[in-house]
């Protein structure tokens, strides 16, 4: 009873707890690695320890005779059947890319590349045998540094003849969206301000919670692949294309998936190898990567050098922006590797009215793990660059960073606004979000405190950082993707199935992996069809059930998939109306639907949805021509992207004695349009913030000069935990999107895109009086301290790229004491 009384008036907008969390958090669910099939075999990969080498021979005999081993496959064994891993986004007509075999045949291009696979009765037997595979390598010089790669002196793939994969340009003069940028810069050099900076987007590792795992069962008419992926539909299509298996013979299931952050937007060599091994042995096989393998060979993210030239008048009105990127592809092009930096092309101008803009991007190969989508994909890089530059401009003009932004941003009455990059922003209100954030943050109070600390030369200085971000998400209008030479479309599909007993099944083509779609989709359907929230079941991630779909990434699921769902629900109502009319002996035109009831206009005669559904199911006396089903589906191709925005304010304390930085306060006011579930939004924002802050302060994938991943475990890849963060203050302004019926904008990436520059701006702001105008990310205490120490001199100190061993291979402990080895200890005694 109370449950019914407590029921919110509308489900949309209610802070529902996520219905999927019980099973996800307790682990009482089907993760891929939990799957056990009769006769299942296990795989272990043999990976190259070298970044660049020729394979001169592989001896698998010892491995093959190891107990429990069924087969050992090398690249040579499968070279005629394994095809090549696909790149779905050739950004230019003449894009160059090396062939990317799932198992390397004669050449390895990064440390971690698979050179053989062992199939055995148990995972332990497979691992034991993998240690026995003897591979002969001839080492080749690796190219690791992006700027070195641009010189083409050392080649990542000698057979390609160059490290350059592609050059891509957007020019506002050429596109007719603005003026020529070089003229703007010339003019600014003569009588305005030119800010020139070079920023580094360090390499990051998605580090999802559940390592990737794949099970392949070849023992049926359809080959069934369970995989921990964000993109089961892509895995199906690309398994068909890469291996030449008819798509109709493949079923892909993404069961519950433990996070992805773009890191599972991939068709992986491991997925191909599982199919090869299953077909070779005729047995179901399983492969689950270790955390080390995940960090080493799951795709990485970011990794760019950004050369930026901002032109402005003396009063700080921006007149042009030129961007020159070097983007690290790593060793190969994954599914969308090449397009990631290009996704940033439309966002460097951000919320501002720039009259001229040019974006140049050179994609380069190196002998490192390939990069690809990582939360934000292209937009965090752009947002970082422009939000850092706006702070630099403010400092140059000598005004507050918020003031310089206000001078340049699009005013709320100017929406819809077509930008210099050719995007049309549908709605937004930067003034409102900023005013609210300022108030929550006590911006003026903190500025006063900053001044006091400066005045009294406090060893702990305070810095305030601003990020007034926007981003484009809701990927994506198919026509735009086509124009960008992306292979697929950007639509989404939904089916609403009305079950005879009044319950509802929703089938979505999106593929949640932690977002809470089951909850929100249920909320939407509950409101739309007037059924209880609990009566809605959301099905996803199995190509046999959700046969149409383009999966989950790019903050697209609600704004594209949710809209498809709304359309399908509307169709259910339209289909039900003639049924209701028949039951109510009224004309269809007189039937209205609201609150779960079909009513005859102007009367109190009505039928509940459940009654209509049952009548359609039993279909005992349907009039001729009426189909005995109310089920409906819809495919929706978005008319445009969605443009969430927000104002993020961050206060950082910097201990100038040690370089330690700590967060004092973080306020964000995001405008993501109408909110379906504030609790889920809060979760997405918090998680995103931490991930973006982590780029600013903690995370970096570091390689040594041999091409070995130094940060190959969580000892050295310093992923933050809750213990490293503070309580964030979050709030929203609401400017509904005008491009979908829900009025929603994406929120999955917003926090991650916005927070990075806010944090670095704050750190730099604290140190600016010392003449410091940049700290390279991550802003480690060492980097901060070195910047302070060398402030004034133009050469920043280099930092070191080694790991400290905590699990030393030699760890003797029981070695006989050797008196001579105690010398260092004694030497240090004072």
């Amino acid at each position, binding site marked *: 009873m109370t449950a019914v009384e407590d029921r919110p008036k509308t489900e949309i907008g209610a802070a529902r707890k996520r219905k999927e969390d019980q099973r996800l958090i307790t682990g009482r669910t089907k993760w891929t690695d939990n799957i056990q099939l009769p006769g299942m075999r296990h795989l272990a990969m043999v990976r190259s320890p070298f970044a660049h080498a020729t394979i001169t021979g592989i001896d698998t005999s010892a491995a093959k005779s190891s107990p429990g081993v069924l087969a050992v496959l090398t690249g040579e064994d499968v070279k005629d059947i394994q095809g090549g891993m696909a790149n779905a986004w050739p950004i230019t007509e003449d894009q160059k890319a090396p062939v990317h075999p799932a198992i390397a045949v004669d050449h390895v291009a990064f440390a971690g590349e698979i050179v053989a696979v062992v199939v055995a009765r148990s*995972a*332990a037997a497979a*691992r*034991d045998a993998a*240690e026995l595979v003897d591979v002969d390598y001839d080492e080749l010089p690796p190219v690791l540094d992006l700027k070195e790669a641009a010189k083409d002196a050392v080649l990542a793939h000698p057979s390609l003849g160059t490290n350059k994969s592609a050059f891509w340009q957007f020019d506002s003069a050429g596109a007719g969206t603005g003026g020529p940028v070089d003229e703007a810069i010339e003019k600014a050099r003569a009588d305005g301000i030119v800010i020139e900076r070079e920023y580094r987007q360090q390499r990051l590792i998605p580090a999802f919670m559940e390592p990737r795992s794949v099970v392949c069962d070849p023992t049926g008419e359809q080959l069934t692949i369970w995989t921990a992926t964000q993109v089961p539909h892509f895995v199906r299509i690309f398994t068909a294309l890469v291996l030449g298996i008819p798509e109709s013979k493949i079923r892909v299931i993404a069961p519950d998936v433990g996070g992805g952050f773009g890191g599972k937007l991939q068709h992986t060599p491991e997925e191909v190898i599982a199919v090869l091994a299953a077909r070779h042995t005729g047995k179901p096989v399983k492969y689950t990567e*270790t*955390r*080390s393998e995940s960090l080493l060979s799951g795709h990485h993210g970011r990794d760019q050098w950004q050369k930026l030239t901002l032109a402005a008048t003396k009063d700080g009105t921006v007149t042009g922006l030129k961007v020159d990127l070097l983007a690290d592809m790593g060793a190969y092009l994954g599914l969308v590797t090449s397009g990631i930096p290009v996704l940033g092309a439309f966002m460097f101008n951000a919320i501002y009215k720039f009259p001229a803009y040019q974006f140049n991007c050179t994609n380069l190969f190196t002998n490192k793990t390939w990069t690809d989508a990582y939360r934000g994909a292209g937009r965090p890089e752009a947002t970082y660059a422009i939000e850092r530059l706006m702070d630099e401009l403010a400092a140059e003009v000598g005004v507050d960073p918020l003031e310089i932004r206000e001078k340049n941003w699009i005013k709320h009455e100017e929406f819809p606004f077509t930008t210099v990059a050719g995007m049309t922003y549908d709605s937004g209100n930067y003034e409102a979000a900023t005013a609210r954030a300022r108030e929550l943050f006590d911006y003026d109070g903190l500025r006063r405190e900053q001044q006091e600390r400066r005045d009294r030369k406090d060893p702990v200085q305070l810095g305030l950082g601003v990020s007034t971000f926007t981003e484009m998400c809701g990927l994506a209008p198919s026509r735009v993707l086509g124009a960008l030479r992306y292979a697929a479309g950007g639509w989404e599909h939904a089916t609403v199935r009305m079950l005879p007993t009044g319950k509802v099944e929703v089938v979505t083509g999106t593929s949640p992996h932690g977002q809470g779609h089951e909850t929100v989709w249920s909320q939407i359907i509950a409101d739309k069809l007037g059924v209880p929230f609990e009566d809605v079941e959301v099905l996803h991630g199995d190509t046999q059930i959700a046969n149409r779909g383009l999966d989950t990434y790019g903050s697209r699921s609600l704004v594209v998939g949710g809209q498809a769902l709304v359309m399908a629900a509307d169709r259910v109502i339209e289909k039900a109306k003639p049924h209701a009319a028949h039951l109510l002996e009224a004309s269809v035109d007189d039937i209205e639907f609201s609150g779960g009831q079909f009513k005859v206009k102007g009367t109190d005669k009505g039928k509940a949805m459940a009654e209509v559904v049952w009548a359609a199911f039993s279909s005992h006396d349907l009039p001729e021509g009426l189909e005995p089903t109310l089920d409906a589906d819809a495919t929706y191709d978005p008319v445009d992207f969605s443009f969430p925005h927000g104002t993020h304010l961050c206060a950082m304390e910097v201990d100038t*004695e*040690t*370089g*330690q930085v700590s967060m004092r306060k973080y306020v964000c006011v995001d405008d993501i349009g109408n909110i379906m579930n504030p609790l889920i939004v809060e979760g997405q924002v918090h998680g995103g913030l931490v991930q973006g802050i982590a780029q600013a*302060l*903690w995370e970096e994938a*570091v390689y040594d000069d041999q091409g070995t991943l*130094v*940060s190959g475990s969580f*000892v*050295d890849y*310093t*992923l*933050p*935990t809750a*213990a*490293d963060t503070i309580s964030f203050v979050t709030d929203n302004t609401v400017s509904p999107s005008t491009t979908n019926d829900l009025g929603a904008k994406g929120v999955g990436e917003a926090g991650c895109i916005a927070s990075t520059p806010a944090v670095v701006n704050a750190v730099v702001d604290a140190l600016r009086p010392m003449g410091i105008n940049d700290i390279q990310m991550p802003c*480690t*205490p*060492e980097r901060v*301290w*070195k910047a302070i120490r060398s402030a004034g001199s133009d050469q920043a100190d280099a*930092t*070191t*790229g*080694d*790991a*400290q*061993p*905590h*699990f*030393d*291979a*030699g*760890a*003797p*402990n*029981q*070695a*006989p*004491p*050797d008196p001579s*080895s*105690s010398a*260092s*200890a004694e*030497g*240090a*005694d*004072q």
Partner: protein
Amino acid sequence: MIPARFDYVAPTSVADALSALAEAGDDAKVMAGGQSLLPILRMRLNAPETVVDLGRIEELRGVRDEGDHVVIGAMTTYADVLASDLVRQHAGVLTDAIEEVADPQIRHRGTVGGALVHADPAGDVGAPVLALDAELVVTGPGGERTVPAAEFFRDLFETAVGEGELLTAIRIPKHTGWGSRYEKFVRVAHQWSIVAVAATVRVEGGAIAEARIGLTNMGSTPLRATAVEQALVGKAATEDAVREACAAAAEGTNPPSDLNGDADYRKHLATVLTRRAVLAAAGA
């Protein structure tokens, strides 16, 4: 992460453990809490033929009061040490340091003995044990010997515990009434020390009467900053006096250079952290 095959024995007494070790010979590994050993085995950095698990040896667990000394059994977990008032009262800097080790899960499993024998220079218990002038009780086939902390740590991952021997106890002279502080410097909460300083001081009438300072991760073993200890004697517990006395904290050290910082940076940190630790320990 599957280790190579090994035989497993779990004796219930020190005597049985020693004979199990003797029997297994070269290729045996002792396991305490397993928090360092298991990652090594799982990453296949080491593949012993036999693992001798000390987990069932009750006589190695617990904290005892032995007059002038507090005695901690080698198999006492971090969590049990944290719960011990004896340690908190008489060897406070060890409690302070252990509060900073890893996370609750690891503190629940990891042992003080295991940490000392593992001898990771970035580990947090070496410096306080050294600063407190503890003695390490090592038991072998030939019986028991006692090694002063200053002679216990030999090198990176290497201690005075020889093949076929066990660390059985840590004997700490009581430092009752001494103030203490462990200053651990990290980038993220669950990290090993980039540098840490264990300081314990006795203050008399506003001045420092005695000071003991151990440095973590400033060389291949934990180190004592004896020059600073001496310089502090008789100094007022004030910022300026302590700053001056601590200026030499990094002298003669040879810290590593790695992703978290190079040697110069660590030396600088050691100086700052020593000052902060001493001031806090002195209640200033």
